[in-house]
């Protein structure tokens, strides 16, 4: 049955791609006109060329995508490797009746093949064809296919999700997700669209808000407080909005050995995380969230291409017992009851380092600019921070792995399965060696370089024991898995 050797071309694509042309360059400013001209001269032909050059077809064994104008890229995705086929529709394509087909291979965080602006009908057809190919392959006895979509879609209706979020929960999550970042992004966008926001504001102020304006202008304090309150309110509501948009009807299913995740309001997203691709588990919280027993579970994953790694949110917002339940279902690691602390020397070292850093910043000011004796008042603060840091730092050796916990304001807990460790390392600088402490770090694939699960200032003897124990477990695990 080699009937599907055909090329599918999408029609509504061009119009949609051309949309930015109509929205830009409506200003009278000559610069914008020039930009629009440049845009018209280069981008439109480029878009057209890209559209003409973009080709994809399905052969019995592969999905082939040719793309690119100057650098041409030919991508062949073996059908048996395809894990998940996702059809995504964001708001605008929804109106235009197009969809994005994303093809995921074994556990990669990013889609390996993306076909954008395909008609909805075509998209479904593509998915059906690919599935059918896979089914045929399985029947032929290759047995290599990882696809369990069929199983998923059959069981989707019946199976109980291992975690899902009610609307109320999504709102609560947003309420804790206070962030000024989106606000900043919003204002920069505003500035981009409308170069003179004062027009809008003066209209607003002359109209309904006129009495407010008078009182604000008379009192700088009121203005300050109002400003802060407005920012806080906007940050808070934008947090809620983002959370709702992202996690609306969040649902996590465990089917076979894969996690299926589905969520979103405007953009419906759907994803698959094979458990064997999970490198480590990260539980995040902050002091406020922890106060109300809220946590977030992320999975550190790795794609087939080693360069593609990512952190997948498995449980966006849940209580501890819910996280525990999910962890138990996923299997492998659990949150230990007891943590061992690092050496108390870490308080001293951290305080000293912070003080030196503060001194380096403040001393030049003190000598050449102004009196900075108040800097001494920072010392108790530094000490308090150091103690908080020590209290929050802990580790635990479990049967299946190693757990590291740290962070004062952003608390992280890494659950690192022994079998996923890549390299074992210990290091200590001159001062640490003098004080008899060492750092320990177990590297995993795709670990964040910005937030490493490194454990500092462990007594040297204990550090050695930990490395030895874990390495022994690692070797034993190897032996068990081979036999």
């Amino acid at each position, binding site marked *: 049955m080699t009937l599907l050797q055909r090329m599918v071309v999408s029609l509504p694509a061009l119009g949609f791609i051309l949309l930015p042309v109509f929205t830009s360059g409506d200003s009278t400013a000559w610069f914008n006109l020039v930009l629009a001209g440049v845009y018209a001269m280069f981008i439109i032909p480029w878009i057209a060329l890209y559209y003409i050059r973009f080709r994809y077809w399905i052969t019995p064994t592969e999905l082939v995508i040719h793309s690119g104008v100057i650098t041409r890229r030919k991508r062949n995705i073996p059908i048996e490797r395809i894990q998940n086929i996702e059809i995504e529709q964001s708001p605008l394509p929804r109106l235009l009746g197009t969809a994005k087909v994303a093809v995921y291979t074994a556990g990669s965080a990013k889609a390996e093949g993306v076909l954008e602006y395909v008609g909805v009908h075509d998209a479904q057809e593509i998915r059906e064809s690919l599935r059918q190919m896979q089914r045929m392959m399985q029947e032929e006895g290759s047995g290599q296919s990882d696809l369990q979509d069929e199983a998923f879609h059959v069981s989707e209706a019946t199976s109980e999700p291992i975690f899902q979020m009610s609307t109320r929960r999504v709102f609560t999550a947003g309420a804790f997700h206070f962030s000024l970042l989106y606000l900043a992004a919003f204002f920069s966008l505003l500035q981009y669209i409308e170069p003179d926001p004062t027009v809008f504001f003066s209209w607003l102020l002359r109209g309904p808000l006129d009495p407010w304006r008078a009182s604000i202008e008379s009192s700088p304090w009121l203005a300050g407080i109002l400003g802060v309150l407005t920012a806080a309110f906007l940050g808070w509501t934008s947090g809620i909005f983002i959370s709702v948009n992202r996690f609306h009807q969040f649902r996590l299913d465990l089917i076979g050995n894969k996690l299926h995740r589905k969520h979103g309001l405007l953009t419906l997203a759907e994803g698959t995380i094979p458990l064997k691709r999970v490198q480590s588990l990260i539980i995040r919280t902050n002091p406020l969230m922890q106060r109300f027993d809220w946590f977030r579970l992320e999975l550190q994953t790795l794609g087939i291409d080693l360069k593609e790694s990512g952190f997948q949110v498995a449980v966006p917002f849940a209580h501890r017992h819910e996280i525990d339940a999910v962890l138990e279902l996923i299997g492998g690691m659990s949150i230990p009851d007891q943590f061992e602390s690092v050496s108390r020397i870490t308080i001293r070292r951290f305080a000293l380092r912070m003080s030196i850093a503060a001194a380096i910043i403040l001393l030049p000011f003190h000598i050449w600019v102004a009196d900075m004796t108040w800097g001494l008042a920072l010392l108790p603060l530094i000490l308090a921070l150091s103690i908080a840091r020590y209290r929050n730092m802990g580790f635990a050796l479990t049967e299946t792995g190693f757990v590291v916990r740290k962070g004062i304001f952003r608390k992280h807990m890494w659950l690192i399965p022994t079998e996923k460790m890549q*390299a074992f390392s*210990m290091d200590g600088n001159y001062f640490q060696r003098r004080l008899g402490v060492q750092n320990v770090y177990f590297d995993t694939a795709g670990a964040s370089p910005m937030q490493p699960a490194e454990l500092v200032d462990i007594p040297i003897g204990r550090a050695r024991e930990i490395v030895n124990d874990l390495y022994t477990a690692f070797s*034993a695990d190897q032996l068990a898995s081979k036999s």
Partner: protein
Amino acid sequence: MRDGVVVITRDTYMENTSNKSILPNTEAGVASFSELNKLAPEIVTVWRIKTGIWMGIFMLAVLVVDILNFFDSDKLAPFGVLPAIALIVGFSISWWIPSLRYAYWRYALQPTELVLVHGIFNRVHTVVPLRRLQHLDVSQDLFEREYELGKLIIHTAGTRSSDVSLPGLAMSEAERLRDEMKTYITDEAL
């Protein structure tokens, strides 16, 4: 063949996997040095030449500044003093640091892992399990070629230790290590 390097095959690899301690039970990781291999001594010369070049550039920069300030009345020191200091400091740095680096560098290819210990101020002890190898490179730069030295670069899927390099090996040794270690590269899924 250098002393202390155990030649291993796949069979002994599997036998040795069980319950083996990687770290000699010693204080502060210093005594375990005796059981590990040193680098080829020629690497000290290579490092000296390389640091020497950088220090030479630094010295030249100081010299240029000094010449430009030749007629400056209130300069820091008489003409020639600053470049001389730069020369002395640069020379001693490029003389001592490489030999210290050499003194603290140790490695060993053990049955199931590669152990690297190095660092003057910050001493790092890394254990790379052989089954975690992604690929291996042997590289040689201009100076290393002159002394027939090679550098072995071990790539793992980790982030911080995604490429661990082992410099200062005799080229033959580097190639031997590579050939031995490459048998352990597996397609094992992560």
